[in-house]
């Protein structure tokens, strides 16, 4: 047994043959202490969902190993599964059943006894008691999400996996869910591993964050620690005509220049100091658009990977969103 809720050691997952398959996870190492909300931040296809699938025993490990709640997910999968809860990106419930029957089924699947009182408490806690005997197909998306979290908490798990829990939700439902995650973590003391590609979600909810891209963990720390890695502001510049990168690099305070032609990303020591110098070097009439970003998780990701989250795969994101919406409506 270990004090950590989740330990991932040199974990690799390849879909297909080892030679020609797709490497979804590439020698991932992570240790997540008990009682923490830990975020896995990365774009679509980064490996977040695969890591959850591996740690919940849904898919096999190609190499390495993982411990969940002190149990090896390959050698003791049933012991580990008895201690985990799961909230899916898509709301997954039995639509032919009522809320209370969904809880009953979850209790049966977890072989629980004396679960009825806890189920009633959870229905009360999530304000679902009045609708407990209604078919969940008649529930709103927010209510369905609440019930899904209640199912995840019913057997008092040590760890809850939340796989992009707010994808496709409107702003108010997303905010509601953030409050629920915070409250649940506080009141039930459960470890939460949450994956997201929403920067603000990771920043708002997670005590520690790992940035994952192309199957590899690129950085890990508290949001403050990660932001401190970027000791610079980011200036995005669009000019009316092509510029020479040398002219931009020569401005005092500019640490790095990326881009070409009329679109540039400048890494500067302090935007307050550098902008007046920049305007002196390039006449303001030649600047079509300029924006400044203070250190954020977005700039951390940009700093580490050279691109923004979601920049590569907008189509996959839209597909996922529509799939989620269709399932939510069923």
């Amino acid at each position, binding site marked *: 047994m270990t004090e950590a809720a989740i330990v991932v050691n040199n974990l690799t997952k390849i879909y297909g043959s080892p030679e020609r398959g797709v490497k979804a996870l590439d020698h991932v190492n992570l240790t997540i202490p008990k009682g923490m909300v830990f975020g896995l931040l990365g774009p679509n296809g980064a490996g977040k969902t695969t890591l959850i699938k591996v740690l919940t025993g849904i898919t096999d490990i190609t190499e390495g190993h993982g411990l969940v709640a002190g149990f090896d997910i390959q050698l003791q999968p049933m012991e580990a*599964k008895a201690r985990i809860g799961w909230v899916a990106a898509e709301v997954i419930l039995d639509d032919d059943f009522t809320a209370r029957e969904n809880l009953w089924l979850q209790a049966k699947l977890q072989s629980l006894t004396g679960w009825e009182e806890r189920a009633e408490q959870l229905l009360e806690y999530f304000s679902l008691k009045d609708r407990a005997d209604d078919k969940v197909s008649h529930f709103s998306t927010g209510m369905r999400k609440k019930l899904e979290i209640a199912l995840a908490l019913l057997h008092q798990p040590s760890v809850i996996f939340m796989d992009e829990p707010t994808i496709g939700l409107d702003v108010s439902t997303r905010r509601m869910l953030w409050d629920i995650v915070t409250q649940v973590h506080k009141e039930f003391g459960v470890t939460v591993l949450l994956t997201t590609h929403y920067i603000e979600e990771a920043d708002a909810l997670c005590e520690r964050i790992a940035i994952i891209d192309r199957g590899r963990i690129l950085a890990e720390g508290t949001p403050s620690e990660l932001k401190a890695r970027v000791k610079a502001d980011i200036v995005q510049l669009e000019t009316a005509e092509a510029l020479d990168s040398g002219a931009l690099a020569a401005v005092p305070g500019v640490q790095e220049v990326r881009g070409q032609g009329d679109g540039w990303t400048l890494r500067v020591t302090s935007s307050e100091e550098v902008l007046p110098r920049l305007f002196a070097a390039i006449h303001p009439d030649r600047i079509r658009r300029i924006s400044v970003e203070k250190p954020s998780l977005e700039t951390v990701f940009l700093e580490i990977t050279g691109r923004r989250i979601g920049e590569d795969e907008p189509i996959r994101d839209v597909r996922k969103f529509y799939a989620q919406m269709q399932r939510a409506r069923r």
Partner: protein
Amino acid sequence: MKLQWSPFWGLYSREILRTFRNPFVLLITIVQPFMWLAFFGSSFSLLPASELETLFGASNYIQFLLPGVLSTSMLTVGMFGSMSTIQDKRFGFMKRILITPTSKGLVFVTKALGSATRGLVQFPVMIAAAIAFGVSFHLSPLDWFAWIVTLMLLAIGFCSLFLAITARSTDWQTPGVVSNFITMPLMFASAALFGSSHFPTWMQDISNVNPITFSALLGRSFVLGTAPNWAYLGYLGLFAGTMLTIGYFVSSRWLAVE
């Protein structure tokens, strides 16, 4: 192979409850064999009773046909079980089940037994329909019980077969394709609709090992009041047990989660 009773009961109950909450599936399950009786069963209605006796050993063709139709409808039950599993995979519910301490083998067993039980819903409806068509029944309680067990074993066997074949599939069309491939040869190369004595030899060979034949013949002996061959029940038990075992191991290893 340790049976987990609590998840077993949960998933088995889910299969049964969902049937009764989906009126369309229930309607089709009931109406389809009823249509067989009404349309196919009426095809010899103008034949003189003496010729029916000669051809089928019964004065009413529906009396002869009923055990056969009940047997062949267990094939359809297998297809519905397979479709229900694919629905769970596609809607993500299979993941919800398998993230709990529930094994893939147990999911298979509950699907097979649940679908087979669901298929038996047809039994009382068909008996009532046959009475409406003029068939009279003179079965002892043991005969009734044995007939139900016969159909249950046949249904378990076919449900297991369908589930094993479609274990890796997530395509809605697969059960239908498999059903089309399996149903027709098994139905016609059996004693379900006609006696096999006039079949060509190669069809008789298939019919002689076809579980539908054994179920139809056993059921027919109960309906017509002839001496049942209890070895048929043993054969069907062997068929159900073998298919259930094969399906269990196939699903434990290859059942696709999504």
